[in-house]
């Protein structure tokens, strides 16, 4: 049995000033028990709305959410959040400002009628894990953003539900702690076998954590799969342009005839293809599959050196490209030709 089944969800927000906003337009996916399911997508694509629907805070206009075989959400049904055995880390943290950190983490346990001793034990454990033991007696207003976020995380973890929803739980934590937290979250998930539904727009986080990755765009599912599979084999130009560091170059070229044979052309680079003359072909080229040599078809507009990698930004033939080199001696303003080792054609 599928643990969580989301089927054809539509959701329109009605707000006073903006009128109707269609946020989700037919979202479907399955999450297996114990899976670390990551949802990745640009800002405003409806990720938080989706989590709210799964949590039971909002009702879909169309479609169904089936949790452990039970229809929990549909236009007519809405099982209240506390009957769904889940917890949630809000994007806005949503801590209880009048309670201490301890009180915040204790609240869900109190509501679940866990006895005092057990409550204390679990809170200390989780606080230790999240490095907030020294903050237990502080109020949320006395904490930094990252500390607040960890408290929010702790509050979701102490409850030990069968499903945890996380809405960008690490967005405000500094890089080194973030990496540590990432590992901890993954470890907790493995050890407890809890199913995680994790929203982020940090692709490193997504790649590192996900058993299954779902890419969303403007209220629709773009692609679902294992993270590496999605990375290597993006099904749409959008996914291609979203993943990778830096992401894949996606350009559209017209087929032209050379000696009666169809070709596409990008600056100095030409490649034989199949297709009638004049057809638009969308291709994706990973930055690492472009190599540069002295020439004249592209101008180097800027160069970024990050560690031992260099991102070279090119402009020419009506497009902008980015190439990735090891080491590298590209200089701004220089002129180059390209060679492409590998590319992908989107249909």
């Amino acid at each position, binding site marked *: 049995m599928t643990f969580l089944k989301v089927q054809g969800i539509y959701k329109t927000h009605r707000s006073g000033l903006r009128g109707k906003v269609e946020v989700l337009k037919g979202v479907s996916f399955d999450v297996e028990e114990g899976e670390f399911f990551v949802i990745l997508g640009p800002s405003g694509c409806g990720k938080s709305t989706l989590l709210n629907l799964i949590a039971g805070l909002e009702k879909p206009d169309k479609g169904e959410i089936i949790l452990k075989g039970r229809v929990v959400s549909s236009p007519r049904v809405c099982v209240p959040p*506390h009957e769904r055995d889940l917890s*949630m880390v809000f994007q806005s943290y949503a801590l209880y400002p009048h309670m201490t950190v301890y009180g915040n983490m204790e609240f869900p346990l109190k509501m679940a009628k866990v006895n005092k001793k057990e409550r204390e034990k679990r809170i200390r454990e989780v606080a230790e894990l999240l490095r907030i033991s020294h903050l237990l007696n502080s109020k*949320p207003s006395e904490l930094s953003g990252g500390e607040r976020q960890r408290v929010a995380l702790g509050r979701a973890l102490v409850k030990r539900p069968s499903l945890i929803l996380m809405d960008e739980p690490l967005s405000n934590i500094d890089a080194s702690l973030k990496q540590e937290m990432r590992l901890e979250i993954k470890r907790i998930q493995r050890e407890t076998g809890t199913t995680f539904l994790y929203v982020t727009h940090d692709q490193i986080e997504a790649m590192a954590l996900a058993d299954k990755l779902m890419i969303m765009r403007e209220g629709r599912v773009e692609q679902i799969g294992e993270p590496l599979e999605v990375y290597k084999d993006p099904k749409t130009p959008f996914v291609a342009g979203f993943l990778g560091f830096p992401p894949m170059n996606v350009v559209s070229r017209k087929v032209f005839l050379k000696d009666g044979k169809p070709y596409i052309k990008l600056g100095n680079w030409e490649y034989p293809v199949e297709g009638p003359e004049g057809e638009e072909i969308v291709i994706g080229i990973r930055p690492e599959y472009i190599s540069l040599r002295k020439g004249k078809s592209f101008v180097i507009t800027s160069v970024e050196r990050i560690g031992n990698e260099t991102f070279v930004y090119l402009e020419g033939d009506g497009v902008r490209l980015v190439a990735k080199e090891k080491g590298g001696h590209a200089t701004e303003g220089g002129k180059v030709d390209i060679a492409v080792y590998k590319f992908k054609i989107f249909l």
Partner: protein
Amino acid sequence: MKRFVLILGLCFFTIFTLLPIVLMIFLSFSEDMDFLLGGDLSLTFRNYRDILFSEEVSFGRYIINSLIVSGLSACLSLLLSLPSAYAFSRFASPFLSRFIFLFLLITMFPPISTVGFLFQVFSALGIINTYLSLIVTHTAWSLPLGVWVMYAYTEKIPKDIDRSALIDGAGLFRTMFYIILPLSKPALASAYILLFLYSFNEFLFAYMFTVDESTRTVPVGVALFEGLYGQIPWGYIMASASLSVLPVMIGVLFLQKYIIGGLTKGSVR
């Protein structure tokens, strides 16, 4: 220059609001009204002594009645306001919440238009000249104000906070009790003062539904001084007014410390 104008404005405002109060206190201590007409000013405690301890006037009783009626009706009204405001803020459709101000229409309804009808109902129920009749009407009339004040505040509590409580397993009632209620303290305090003052100053209902000293409130009692003495006893009225400001001032001072903003600070980023 700007500063000067500001200070001037503030001075004017202060004088404008304080002058009547100062005058009131002055008059409450003066033997008669002569000095207003240019006569001598003679200070005395007689007015206070008379209204507090004389046989004819039972001002102490009025104060107690007023405190009971206002205290309880404000409590009751607040108790009902919080859940209504919460429900309005969280569950009313965007369309409906645009019309919440219509609530206030009830307060604009002239009490005089219903007082006769209410009198008959209360007579039939046998609760004329009881606290109950006043508490019920005052609660009903001040409720919209309470809902309005509480609504404005509840709207400002980030919705994610109570959503989070819902997920954490608190139902609607426990969310209201453990989360919304403690977070609303500042609004509760200011709303309480407003509701209390409404009831404390209310005249028409209090006048109609009370028959004798046992239930008369301060405004009614003071209004009846005239009948008692044939002429308007300004000294007594001013002394009563000064005295009745006292409990309200004490209340405000006490509640003031709860009226602080920023209670939800640190909850959301």
